[in-house]
């Protein structure tokens, strides 16, 4: 689908934006990780409480905070819903496309909002294993695509804005 056409939000996005689930800091979180930055205009923070039960790492609780557009808030909220009660390996494999689908299909221009949500989740999972000093064999050594995209967004914000400035012709004041 072309990006020339501004696709509207699905009712689902609007619904979750209205009534987000699992909002706010989690007192006894095992890990807290975020992706994005205020300068980008979008930043998702995930709080996970993880318990190891029968050698499986289960997400007992997940909450979020989000600075960003309505899609960003909805993506963050739905990802907490999707991972609650699930084990980390399952959570690791959630894709941005699944999130978009859960939201009834995001407009192309908003794909990055769900990439950000996946990025924050992956970062939290890595942080957890780092914290407990383990590395399960299913966890890739190298950063995967979505993690790279998030890093890129964070790192590239300066470069990106610089090139956009040229496109938009914003000159820095003397």
């Amino acid at each position, binding site marked *: 689908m072309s*990006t020339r*056409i*501004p*696709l*509207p*939000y*699905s*009712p689902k996005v*609007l*619904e979750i*934006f*209205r009534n*987000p689930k699992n*909002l*706010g800091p989690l007192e006894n979180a095992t890990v807290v990780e*975020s992706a994005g930055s*205020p*300068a*980008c*205009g*979008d*930043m*998702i*923070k995930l709080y996970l409480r993880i318990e190891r039960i029968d050698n499986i790492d289960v997400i007992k609780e997940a909450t*979020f*905070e*989000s*600075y*960003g*557009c*309505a899609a*960003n*808030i909805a993506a963050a909220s739905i990802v907490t819903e999707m991972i609650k009660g699930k084990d980390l390996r399952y959570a690791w494999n959630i894709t941005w496309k699944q999130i978009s689908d859960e939201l009834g299909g995001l407009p192309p*221009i908003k794909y*990055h909002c769900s990439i950000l949500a996946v990025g924050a989740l992956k970062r939290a999972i890595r942080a957890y294993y780092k914290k407990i000093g383990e590395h399960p064999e299913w966890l890739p050594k190298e950063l995967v695509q979505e993690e790279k995209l998030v890093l890129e967004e964070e790192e590239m*914000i300066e470069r990106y*804005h610089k090139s*956009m*400035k040229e*496109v*938009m*012709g*914003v*000159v820095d*004041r*003397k």
Partner: protein
Amino acid sequence: MSFSKKIRELLDHHGKPSKEVYFDLENSGWVPPEVVEAMKPYYNVYGYGHPSITHRIGWEALEVVYEAKELIASSIGAKSIDEIVFTHSGTEANNLAIAGYLLANRNKRGKVIVSSIEHLSVIFPAEFYANILGFKVIRVPVNGEGFIDPEIFKYYVDRDTVLISIQMVNHEIGTVQNIRELVDIAKSVNPNIVFHTDAADAYGKMAIDVNKLGVDMMTISSHKIHGPRGVGVLYVREGINLESPIRGQLSVEKLWPGVENVPAIAGFKKAIELAFNDFDYNINHMKRLRDKLMKGIMDNVDDVLINGPIGDRRAPDNLNISFLYVEGEAITVELSLHGIYVSSGSACTSRVLEPSHVLLAIGRKHEEAHGSILFKTSRYHSEDDIDYAIEIIPKAIDRLRSISSIKPN
């Protein structure tokens, strides 16, 4: 499912709020019933030919087109209706001015000066045609309130400069530029410089006289003052030659080819009458309500920044506020759910995920620009509308701040 059905779903889910207040007048205004009434005869009574046609129906069209031109000419002090050119939008009027001038002078080369906060329909044609035709475009910086420093301006204008376009009122932050002063500087360096001003957001909101201002071309747009869309105007001082970037008319005819949008012109004429009758009352009204809205928000919401100047050198209808720690697109959606309609300069509302170039040009950081909201008040807003907005906005910001991952430190 088709796109339109998806939107219908969204609209159904959104619902129609019991109270609605529309502040998104920068993007488009509504058209009051009197204006629609003024258009109807030109749709309905019978067919309407274009003005050069030699029959009764064509002459009736011509009559209203001339009446509108006469009204516009007298409202800006133009010498003759020959100086009034209709296009279909302010965007097109700006293009006719900029591209039209560069195309007509394509053997000249030289420098084009615009401000860094011009509307994109000035900046983009300047750069596009300059690039093709071999001119050079310079963007003059503005200060933190959007004003051009005359000393800095002086430094940019030189004998190579052929065309300058500086808007009268900035569409986002309401800065009222001192055009006369800039014209004087420009013409003292080189009297042949052609000076265009984009008055799309000034016309109907302040007194304008093209001769007192000394400008050579000026842009006006109908839908900015509750006229119908589909009419833009370029004032072109006698003696200025343009070659329209849109072709299809013999050169002896009007500059913008195609049939005039006669009903829309009739509606615009009515909208001008409405704006200029009780002009002072209208201006005071929009200003008072704007000030009330500003105070109401400032008193009830922490951590806000006013974008643009405060006081007399701000357009009477403009309020632009950055709400820190929250993102503007989310604010527009949240407010929409409560029937308040605004727009934002946030990256998330733009197709390139880049915040408003105007806000960046006045030195706002990205995180400040992201939370910006633009309100425009009009003579049609009531006290009650403002009270409602002041009731809703703090709650909306509170809720989004409670969600936000950024907190004041």
